């Protein structure tokens, strides 16, 4: 199963901000972390990640700095800002609402239908 592109894109910002809220990081590590968290199910590309990081930087949600690692190699580290933390909070509220609503529908208290009744394996 692969998560649909639109859903990946919609979840991209809160996911990156959430990872950066754990501590500063850089592109490759962020991508690895997402891979790890989703068990390889989320199809993230560099073309999604880096432009997103640049956009968040432009909007002031994250800030970046170049730090040198081994030898002449430099690495661009991203750090979440207060604006970014506030935005992450807002995203969380919205996602909680969506997730709660979905849970309510699929396995709510009044629901007597078994889960298997939900058609699976036929993505729209």
């Amino acid at each position, binding site marked *: 199963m692969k998560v649909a592109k639109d859903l990946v894109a919609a979840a991209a910002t809160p996911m990156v901000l959430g990872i950066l809220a754990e501590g500063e990081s*850089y*592109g490759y590590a962020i991508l690895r972390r997402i891979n790890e968290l989703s068990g390889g199910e989320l199809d993230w590309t560099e073309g999604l990640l880096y432009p997103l990081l640049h956009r968040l930087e432009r909007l002031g949600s994250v800030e970046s700095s170049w730090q040198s690692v081994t030898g002449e190699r430099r690495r661009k580290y991203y750090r979440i800002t207060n604006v970014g933390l506030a935005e992450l909070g807002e995203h969380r509220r919205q996602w909680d609402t969506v997730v709660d609503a979905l849970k309510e529908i699929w396995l709510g208290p009044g629901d007597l239908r078994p889960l298997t009744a939900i058609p699976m394996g036929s993505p729209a």
Partner: protein
Amino acid sequence: MTAPQSKDELEAQFAQWRQYVQRRPEMQRSDAEELEDHLRGSVDELIAVGLRADEAFLVAVKRMGSLDDLSREFAREHSERLWKQLVLTGEPDSPTAATKARRDLLAMVICAAGAAASIKVPELFRPAVEEDGAFYATNFGLFALPWLAAFLAWRRHARPALIGVLVALFALGAVAANAYPLAEDSQSIVVTAIHLPVAMWFVVGLAYVADDWRASRRRMDFIRFTGEWFIYFVLIALGGGVLMAFMYGTFEAIGISPEDFISRWLLPCGVVAAVVVAGWLVEAKQSVVENIAPVLTRLFTPLFTAVLLSFLVAVVWTSAGIDIERQALILFNLLLLVVLGLMLYSMSARDPLAPPGLFDKLQLALVVSALVIDVLVLTEITGRITEYGTTPNKAAALGVNVILLANLVWSAWLMLGFIRRHRPFAALERWQTGYLPVYAAWAWIVVLAFPPLFSYV
């Protein structure tokens, strides 16, 4: 394969990849560096699980996906990068280019200030512009163009010998403008005022091609430079006009008349400074902004062809003779000049190896129709001259006409050969660049020899 060897190889592959990424306009240096770090992370991991360095590199690049997709995503976030900006102080992310651009800027400011000063210096010894029109008209090219040539020569690190030649030629121009005893209202003053700037412009050309004045490619570059310079100059002039209009209006509104300041300082200094600034702009923006002269020629070649053909049809239809006044000859000279310009600038942007197309045929039609019209005019005018005798004006106009005619006849012939695939396009290009000294020589002849020849009329 030993370990250090494979490491070197890997580095070479990274360097190649970096160049490849940086060639894309959407990607900047910092992006390339960031992506390279990503790639290296990926490679290190793959080597750690047991792949060889070259294998790891291939897999990592493959995983990153096609560069086209990547740069499309970058372009969505950084769309402003596709509008190539002329950064006046150099690329922000390459320090050496930045210092070079700053030095250029400084040199330009010095040269522009020098030009502005040199149009005001004569006022210390002579009456102002309004009372001494003839002096300023003949010397106009000498105020600004030496400074433009100086800027170009400085930029190209011209050899002392070339600088000597440039100085000597400008000095010769100054002699031609001022040494002859010409009356204020003589025809020769007008002829010199028109031809001296042209002669001086070719001296600027010498400074432009500095290192390699025999090379056809360098001369073609000078032709491109001339077209772009002209367009920038016109744009600056338009902006300057708006500035002066606002200055006049706003100061008038509070009861101060800026007229004197505008006509004696802002306008003359602005014009000569703009000559240098336009030259600097062309040099600075080379390859940053699309050249605009070839675009304009593409736009106007069909329109001019239509007008000339319909004019020819009208002449035949009404069987009216062309009314030949003195202005008419100048008008038709300008027409030939425009046709030549249209041809030169579409040539300057053309890929010499591309096969002949519809546009080339259109251009041939344009040139041939201009030639036919000019022959009609010439047959009329030579009759006039043999009847009434010649003056500097007529002789100069006729000379220009013959020179342009000769160029266009041979160009039409070469173009025909190219369209019929007998000749390569390069022949046409070589003919045009080889012809440049003819214009220069004619301008110098008119400036130096005409006044004594026509006994200073």
